[in-house]
Structure formats: structure tokens, C-alpha cells
């Protein structure tokens, strides 16, 4: 196995989805670190938005358990409210947004609300938080998930965060632009493809293979023609990551 953890590869892969100069809805956990890596490597002009009401240029200096922690306030570009920051999504001014989820389906719909029936669920999950908004209104949605058959499913029980809904034109018909651009898992990266915008296998992480990934996917996962191995983190990316997550809290 390579000289990096799978969490490190996921963070770096997420960081690469951020282009220089972009405005990114960062959210919590891994994406905060991914944003920091992007900023310190290829995207020095990216801007990070946090739904608690923070806008930052550079990453915070200090451990962030949550986006509202004091180090994220100190030196921020803007400390304001949720409505002010989240309305940038509705205003069409957010290029990319990160969310996680308990379940995702082949059209990129994500469930963080109810496993099973709404009235009588097996598991009551915490709910949307800002995920439904980020999914609905970012130009590109980026999802980070653990790759398990029970999580990557044919159809989610509940669409908390809309992906391409029933595929094809259905997202547009619901009144939404944008949509999922990549799903980063601990085994692979999936991307929408074709007229139906179904998620296809785009790259497989080192140490994993296509059959294994397909075996852990709850639908008949098709392959992108340009399918390749996920490029490992570069030395520069790992250095940036270690600078941001000094204690290794998010690197597992």
C-alpha cells in the first residue's frame, strides 16, 4: 500500500475538484481540509463559504472541529449570517459545493434523512442541514461517501439532496440547474455520464480494482471510457494537508 492513508487520498481528490478562483461551499469535516489543500496548492484564489456565516480566503490556523470554531472566525474575510452566505447559492454565485451522505443513488440523489419509511424508519438520520440547498443550487455538487453496497443504492429511500432525480431532464424540469459532478468514495471516483446523467466509474484508487468497486455498488455500475487509476497525492499536496491538519484529526 502506498505511503498515504485513504482519507488523505480522498481529501486530495476532493481538493482537485476545486479550480482556482472558484467560490466553494465548504461544509464540514473532510471538505474543510480539502479546501485548505486546494488553497495552498493549485487554487490560491479560491474562496471558501461556510453556512454558519463565514467567508474565508486562507484556511484557518488551528484545529476546526466545526466550521464555527474560533479559529475559523479569526482572520475571516467576512463574518455574517446563514441567509447572507447561503443566498449566494440561490444567487448563482457558488461554483462548487461539498456534501456527504448516508446513501446515494445512481442519479446522485443523496439521503441524510430517513432510512426506510418516513413514518416508520429503520434509522432516523440527522437531516439535511445545508445539504439540500448546496445540492440544489451549486453549479457543481461534489459528494464524499464511504463506498458500501448499502450506501450506493439503486434508489435512495428519501431524496434529501437532489441529484439528477430520475435522470435525463428531470432535474431541469424540477427547476434546478447544476447537479452532481463527482462522487469521491474510499474506493473510487464516480462521475455522471451520458444523456441520463447516471453515475459512472471514473477512476479507481490504488489498491482497489474495478470488479471490487462494482461489487460494492448497489447498481450495475458502468465504466467511463477514460477510466484510470486515481492519481496518488503528490508530495506538495501531502505537505499542504499536513500543514492544515497538524494533529491528523481528519486523516484518520
Amino acid at each position, binding site marked *: 500500500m502506498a505511503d498515504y492513508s485513504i482519507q488523505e487520498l480522498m481529501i486530495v481528490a476532493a481538493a482537485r475538484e476545486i479550480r482556482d478562483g472558484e467560490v466553494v461551499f465548504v461544509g*464540514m469535516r473532510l471538505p474543510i481540509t480539502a479546501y485548505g489543500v486546494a488553497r495552498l496548492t493549485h487554487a490560491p484564489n479560491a474562496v471558501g463559504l*461556510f*453556512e*454558519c*456565516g*463565514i467567508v474565508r480566503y486562507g484556511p484557518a490556523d488551528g484545529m476546526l*472541529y*466545526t*466550521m*464555527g*470554531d*474560533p479559529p475559523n*472566525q*479569526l482572520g*475571516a474575510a467576512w*463574518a*455574517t*449570517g*446563514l*441567509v447572507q452566505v*447561503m*443566498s449566494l*447559492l*440561490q444567487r448563482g454565485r457558488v461554483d462548487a459545493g461539498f456534501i456527504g451522505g448516508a446513501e446515494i443513488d445512481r442519479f446522485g440523489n443523496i439521503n441524510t*434523512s*430517513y432510512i426506510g419509511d*418516513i413514518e416508520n*424508519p*429503520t*434509522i*432516523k*438520520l*440527522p*437531516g*439535511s*442541514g*445545508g*445539504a*439540500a*440547498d448546496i*445540492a*440544489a*443550487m451549486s453549479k457543481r455538487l461534489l459528494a464524499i461517501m464511504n463506498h458500501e453496497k448499502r450506501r450506493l443504492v439503486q434508489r435512495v429511500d*428519501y*431524496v*434529501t*439532496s*437532489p441529484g439528477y*432525480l430520475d435522470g435525463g431532464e428531470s*432535474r431541469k424540469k*424540477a*427547476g*434546478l440547474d447544476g447537479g452532481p459532478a463527482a462522487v469521491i468514495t474510499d474506493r473510487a471516483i464516480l462521475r455522471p455520464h451520458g444523456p441520463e446523467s447516471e453515475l459512472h466509474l471514473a477512476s479507481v484508487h490504488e489498491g482497489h480494482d474495478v470488479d471490487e468497486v462494482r461489487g460494492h455498488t448497489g447498481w450495475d455500475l458502468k465504466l467511463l471510457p477514460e477510466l484510470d487509476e486515481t492519481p496518488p497525492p503528490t508530495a506538495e499536496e501531502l505537505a499542504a494537508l499536513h500543514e492544515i491538519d497538524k494533529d491528523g484529526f481528519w486523516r484518520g
Partner: protein
Amino acid sequence: MIEKLVDLRDAIAEHLRAGDKAVLGACLEPDVPFAATHEIVRQGLRDLNVIAPISDASTDMLIGAGCCTEVTGAWVGNVSGGLGHNYRRAYETAEPHKLTVHDHSNFSIGMALMAGAYGMPYAPMRSILGSDILRSNREFRLAENPFSEAGEPVVLVPPLKPDVAILPVQRADRFGNNHHWGSRGLVFEAAMAAEKVILLADEIVEPEVITSDPSRVLVPGYLVSAVCHVPAGMHPSPMTGRWQRDNEFFNEYHRRSRNRQGFLEWLDEWVLGLPDHAAYREKLGARLESLRIVGAAPAAETNFAAA
């Protein structure tokens, strides 16, 4: 001006009623008014509809303690630990009671409180289109935007008007005038939308401190019903410039609340077995002191002189 400085116990007893819609946790992760959460548990209030975008462990605790039977929010759990065990038990198995959830997204609850704050009949938005939130919460309406040519769909969000909003602030005077800084989440909208506002002030200052900077005021004191002096009243959540997050406290709560018996023991140890927040702070002792922000990063000087 009217003096509004009272003990937290009296503020809760006077202003909060069984069945009220109460905002507890409007700032997302910071400034969750745990001191009030505890006092509500001690007073045994019932049937609260707790409003909070991201409620963190506060709502979970109120559910487990039997105080909260309805939740209006976007996310209920434990930001450090993950799932909210009392929340799950109540919703999945009605233990200790049945729970009604009014599903929202962060932005939809923001629009709902904004509409309440501004007296708007409702707020139209594009968010949560395509989401099953529209299926599980029937309070929203789908409509067509009358200004669009193609009849584009919009979601109409009804206003949310809480009975009470309980909000920590860094400093306030005895008339309820106050300063709040750092990210605000939905604190402002909650303060304006609610019929009554109870402030938990980390510090009580002279009125001149507040009037020296009217741009830092959350809402003027005349809109506040009670102000309580509760240092670190938001522990274990953080407060900008004052207190760091006690992450391990959240994790411990998460571990110990995994089963009902463990939760009840935790509640006895940290809430029911203590008379008030002063005793809670004393029990925390050096642990709380280690979370106090002692560094200095002062805001640039700002002049309000008139001549």
C-alpha cells in the same frame, strides 16, 4: 429604560410555557444556549417545539429529558459525535415519547425565520426544489413564479414565529442592549422573529459600552424580554472571542447517551444533580478555564464621533 437583568431560573419560569415554540441554538455550532437547555430540563417544561437549524446536543437532550415533542429544524444530532441517540430513540421507538419532526433545510428554515422576522407573508425560494423535504413537511407550497415566462417552479416557505428565542451574546447591559460578533447563523432572524427574546450574556457591561458601537448590536434592548448573566452559558459549544469548543464533552455525551440508562445517568450528573449553571461551571472547574480564550486579537479601532 426598563431593567431586564434577571436570574436564568426566573427568566425561564416567567417567559417559557409548555407547548411553546422555542429557538434554542440559532448560531449553528457556536452559541448553543446549553445553560437554558439545562434549566428547562430542571424545571420539567413539556411539549416544547424546539426550533434550531443545527441543534447539536441541546435538542437531543431536551428530547431525552421529555421536554421536547416537536422539532423544527434542518439537522438534529451531535456535531462532534454524529447521530443523536435520544432523537433516534424517540422517532424510531417513541422512547421516552413520540416525536414530530418538521423537516427543513438550513436555507428553508433561514427563509422561514427571515419571513417571520420581517413580517413577510411568506418567502419564495428556489431551494429544496426536487427534495423529499417537500414530501415529509407539507407546510411548504409549490407554486409558479408569476414573473417568469416559463412558469418556473418556486417553493413558498411560510413564516416561522417562535414564542421565545434564547440567544447567547458576548456582552449586554442590564437593559438588554447587547453586542454579538463572529458568524451569526440565524441569530438575528430568530431574535427578530420571536415574540420574546431571552439573552444569556457572557458579560454584563455598562450601557456606554454598547452605545459606543451601535453597528455591533444584535437587536436593541427594547426588543429583549430578559437578560441573564451566564458566563460560558453556551458550554460546551464555542463563543467567538470568548470560549473554545469543548469537543470531548460532546463526544462523551454521545458515548454515554448511546443507551437510555447511560443518558439518564449523564443527565443526573450534569443537569438534574446540579442546582444551576454556577454549580455546573464549578464542576467543570479547570476544564472550563482551559477553554477560556485569553489571547488578544482586537478589532481595528472604529470611530463614531459626530464632529
